[in-house]
Each structure stands twice: as structure tokens, then as C-alpha cells.
């Protein structure tokens, strides 16, 4: 540390070269910690449970044929046929599928026409909890008596409903279980009675803030397009899918729009997130490599430029170790300055991301870990040039300039 004061004076005198390196370290740190924070957020999002049996389930999007007043009967025929298949554990019609990126958004209001919360609306039948594998954590399950069959827009009807825990917590922040029995108003302001609460069931749009805010209504929508959510018996998903498709295609005029496992659906839902994550990792690695090489190059150049000065220091009494420590300390000063500036810049950027994109602010441990990582990178990058500096012979001081 004896060299600290002269190093700071030298850096202040030199200005341009250390300033550029400080700037590079600051920018790298700012981008890196925010990118890592984004990666972590995305990773957490992708790891969230959908709430359904992902392994054994799939869905089919198909058509119902006939006059509108006959579609209810067509729906029943399909359900009876599919539920009878040996590999199928259960089937429910759904107006939308979690993470499918298609569905119906709704207001969830405590009072009519007073906007309280946004969520997604699922029209299903009474078997939804069992078929999807939902976890009912409060209240009662839907029953056959709760179910209505309508051509479409079941939301216009007053029914008993299930809600997710996230909705319950929003409706009754002090004690979410008190949400059971509450009356809520959806987009059409029709009163809906909360009959039960399920732990999790994600909505259709994975990146939407309201992905966990969902209302499940016992309404079979017998329209000319229908989605069947099928849960196979454990380990028989692919077999069940084949049997279901075969059974459905026995109906003349049947069209299968989609047939997809929930695992595939989830994989596809986060495809852009994965691509972005890979890009962010690439950017981070690139920045780290460029910064490491920048520090190395600058240190190497500095050693070559100052060989005579290093020789003079050696001649005047600096040992090899002291010369090496001089360069390591010089880098430490530059790195720490860059990291302090980067710390402030990273906080500012994080705040902007938080305000404009709803991202979680970068946590302090990320900032501290990032600082430590870049500091170590700096020291590693400068170690070889510093070693070379320590090997400069003191006799170079007497050579002609």
C-alpha cells in the first residue's frame, strides 16, 4: 500500500488511458449485473409451476359440428367417448389453456364497475380440479349442479367460481381465505360467488403480470371450436394422445387444429425467453472477455511503455515483489473506481428497468458479487503483465534512452 498515493497521483496525471478503462469497467459492470438480474428473473419465471399435471397432460383443439343448439350434445358425445378410453384419466372442455397465449382477459372487481384487478377467465366443467391436477386449498370444489352449458360468453352468467390464491390474496390481503364466499364482478358486472380457491393455475399469457390471477367458471361453452384438456393415466400420455386423436377423428368432418403436450406448450411459451437469455449470456461473456482483454492489453502496454521506469524503480530499491504489487495495486485502484461508478450506474439502470418494464430491482448480493467477480477478473488479467514487469532487469535503467 506504500505505492497507493503515487499511483493515484500518476493516474490523475495520465487521465485519458485510465479513464477509458474505468469507463469500460463501469459499463461492463452496469450491463452485466442488470443482465444477470434479467436472466435470474426469466429463469425464475420459467421455473414457476403452471399448477397442472405437466407430465401427463395434453390438449386438443378441435371443432364441433352441427347447429348451435346441437353443439352441447356433440360436446357430451366427445366427452363420453374420450373419458372411456383406457389410457385417459380425465377430460375437461376449456375455453383456454394455460400458457397457450390465447384466452379471455377479465376484470375482477369487488364492486360493480369499479376496476380492482385484471385476470384471465377460464370456462370449464366440474371436473377441472381433478383433470388438471389443481390443488384446492380453500372452500369447496365445483359440482355438477354448478355447471351450465352455453354456446359462448358464459361470463355473462352468474355462477359459483373458483379463483387462484393470487386473486384471493388480492381480494382479501389480510386473510386470503376470507375470499371464499365473497362476491366478485367480472367484466360484465354480473355477480360471481367464490366457491373455492386453488393454489396455482397460470393464465394464457406467461409474460403478463396477471398470469397468476385467474377465475375458473363452471361453464361448458359448446361452440364450433372447442379445447379438450386431457390428463392421461401416469406414464401413458403419448398413448392416450394417439387414442384420443383416433377417437375424435372417427367423427366425420372432424378437424384437429392443435394437439400438444403441456410440456411442449410450456417449452414453446418460453422459447423467446430462452433465446433472450442466451443472447444476454453471450453479451455478458463478450463484455467480460473484452474487459479482461482490455485490462490485459492496457497493463501490457503500460509495462512495455514504462520498462525504463520500472528498471529505475528496481535500481532505486524496489524488489520484484514490490514491482508486481505496484501494478496489481494500480489495477485495483482503476477497477475499484470503475466498479464504484458502475455500481451507481447499475442502480440507476435497474431503477429505470423497474419503473418502465416492471423488473425486480437488482438485489444487493448481485451487485456485490458482480463487483467481486469483476475485481478478480481485473487482478487475473493484470497478473501476467505485472509478472513481466517484475522481471524487468534493474540494469535497464543505465541503458541509453
Amino acid at each position, binding site marked *: 500500500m506504500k505505492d497507493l498515493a*503515487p499511483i493515484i497521483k500518476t493516474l490523475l*496525471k495520465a487521465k485519458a488511458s485510465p479513464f477509458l478503462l474505468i469507463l469500460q469497467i463501469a459499463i461492463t459492470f452496469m450491463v452485466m449485473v442488470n443482465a444477470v438480474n434479467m436472466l435470474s428473473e426469466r429463469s425464475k419465471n420459467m421455473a414457476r409451476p403452471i399448477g397442472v399435471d405437466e407430465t401427463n397432460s395434453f390438449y386438443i383443439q378441435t371443432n364441433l359440428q352441427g347447429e348451435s343448439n346441437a353443439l352441447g350434445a356433440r360436446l357430451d358425445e366427445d366427452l363420453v367417448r374420450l373419458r372411456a378410453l383406457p389410457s385417459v384419466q380425465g377430460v375437461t372442455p376449456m375455453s383456454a389453456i394455460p400458457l397457450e397465449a390465447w384466452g379471455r382477459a377479465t376484470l375482477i372487481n369487488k364492486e360493480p364497475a369499479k376496476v380492482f384487478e385484471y385476470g384471465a377467465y377460464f370456462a370449464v366443467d366440474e371436473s377441472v380440479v381433478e383433470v388438471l391436477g389443481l390443488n384446492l386449498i380453500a372452500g369447496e370444489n365445483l359440482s355438477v349442479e354448478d355447471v351450465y352449458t352455453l354456446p359462448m360468453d358464459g361470463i355473462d352468467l352468474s355462477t359459483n367460481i373458483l379463483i387462484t390464491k393470487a386473486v384471493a390474496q388480492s381480494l382479501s390481503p389480510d386473510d386470503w381465505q376470507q375470499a371464499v364466499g365473497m362476491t366478485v364482478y367480472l367484466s360484465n358486472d354480473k355477480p360471481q360467488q367464490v366457491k373455492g380457491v386453488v393454489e396455482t393455475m397460470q393464465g394464457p399469457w406467461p409474460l403478463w403480470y396477471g398470469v397468476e390471477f385467474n377465475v375458473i367458471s363452471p361453464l361448458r361453452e359448446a361452440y364450433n371450436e372447442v379445447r379438450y384438456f386431457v390428463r392421461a393415466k401416469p406414464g401413458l400420455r403419448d398413448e392416450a394422445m394417439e387414442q384420443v386423436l383416433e377417437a375424435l377423428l372417427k367423427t366425420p368432418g372432424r378437424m384437429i387444429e392443435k394437439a400438444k403436450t403441456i410440456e411442449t406448450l410450456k417449452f414453446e411459451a418460453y422459447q423467446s425467453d430462452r433465446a433472450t437469455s442466451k443472447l444476454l449470456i453471450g453479451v455478458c461473456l463478450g463484455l467480460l472477455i473484452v474487459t479482461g482483454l482490455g485490462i490485459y492489453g492496457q497493463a501490457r502496454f503500460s509495462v512495455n511503455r514504462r520498462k*525504463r521506469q520500472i528498471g529505475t524503480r528496481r*535500481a*532505486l*530499491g524496489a*524488489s520484484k515483489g514490490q514491482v508486481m504489487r505496484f501494478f496489481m495495486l494500480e489495477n485495483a485502484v482503476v477497477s475499484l473506481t470503475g466498479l464504484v461508478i458502475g455500481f451507481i450506474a447499475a442502480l440507476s439502470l435497474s431503477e429505470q428497468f423497474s419503473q418502465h418494464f416492471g423488473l425486480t430491482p437488482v438485489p444487493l448480493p448481485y451487485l456485490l458479487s458482480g463487483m467481486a467477480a469483476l475485481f478478480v477478473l481485473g487482478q487475473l488479467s493484470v497478473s501476467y503483465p505485472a509478472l513481466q514487469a517484475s522481471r524487468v532487469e*534493474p540494469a535497464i535503467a543505465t541503458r*541509453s*534512452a
Partner: protein
Amino acid sequence: MLKMTGLAKVYLTSDVKTQALQPFNLSIEQGEFVAVIGPSGSGKTTFLNIAGLLENHSEGVYELDGKDVSTLSDKHKSAYRNEKIGFVFQSFNLIPELNLYDNIDMPLRYRKFTAKERDERIMKALEQVGLAGRKNHYPTQLSGGQQQRVAIARAIAGSPSVIFADEPTGNLDSKMAQGIMSLLQDINASGTSIIMVTHDNEQAQQAQRIVQIKDGVLSEDAPILAQAIA
């Protein structure tokens, strides 16, 4: 103070052996002012590097202040250079980014002096060379002669036993050169040994002893100085 017995220097490359200095004996007592003369490439700088512990010799024994320094580690040699030896280089070798005060302070920082003690030594050295009022100036703001005075101040601030001066006036005009020689004489008068490599016949005559090196052979008998100097 300085005793070299059978000292020699050989440079070895993969297929070439160069005898830079033939074996020689030399003793210099504390307080002596010795001039080392010889033509270019004769081995003067090699001698200075070995005597100043900047380079290792190949053969012989070198004792400095009664201690054999041949086998010292790099760390100990560095400490020896720092405490017992002062250097004055032809090109001054000041650090341009540091002001005069910090340039003189640099070698002192490697020793266990307190800040106050360092300050006293720096200011005393600057006063001795007549530059106390310019301690905050940078080397580029000074003339060549003034820069060499700073280098001398840096050399004497640590109170060394001996100062090795490598062509100290080589880059200066005659007036500035004489000023530097006077300064070295004054320092020598206070008891510090000075070993000065020079091309200048007149300056060599101001030393108490003259050592001549020619083709790697060191001798003290230099009857015709003008011939020895290229």
C-alpha cells in the same frame, strides 16, 4: 567500503561467449571520488551495473561494506541498493507523472521511514540541490540541469554510502555540467563515496582516482587520458 576480488563478467548466449570484463581487483575506500573512463563499449556501464548491484558478476567476490553481496537474494539486493547506494543516471530517469517531491519520495517509500522523516529528508535534499522552492513542479517544467539536480537529490535523500553516477553530465551543456560536478564534489566532501563513469577528460581529472577500462580490461594506470577517451 567496496572490494572486488577477481571479478569478471561473461555474457553467454547459445553459441557466443563474450568476455565483457576480464578478472580484476579493485578496492575503494569510504569517501573516495573515483572516475571510471574508457571508450564506448569498453565495459564501463557493465562495471557500473555490477558495482551498483544492478547486474550479477560471473566470477570473483564482491564485498560492499564488508559483506559479500554475490549470493544475496533479489529482495536483499534491492534493499541494499535502496539503503546503501544512490544512482544518478545520464538521462535523469525521473518519473514524469510525479512532481519533484514525489520523485524523491519514491525510493524512500521502500524503507521504514515515517512520513515526517521522509518529508525532512526530501526537503533537505531539495535544499541541498537548490530546488526547494520547486518541489511541486514536474520534471518537464525543469531544464536538463535542474532535472539532474533532482536526480541527485533523489540519490542522496536516503543517505547512501556510495553514489554511482553514470555519465551524469552527458546530456548537459558545459555550464550545467560544471554545476553538477560542483554538487557532486560537495556531496563527496560530506563523506559519501562517488563512483562516476564519464567520457569527459576534464571531469575525470576532478576525481581523486581514475580507473580506466579498455576492451574489458580494468586498470588504474591511465597515463594519457586523452588517448583512453574515445
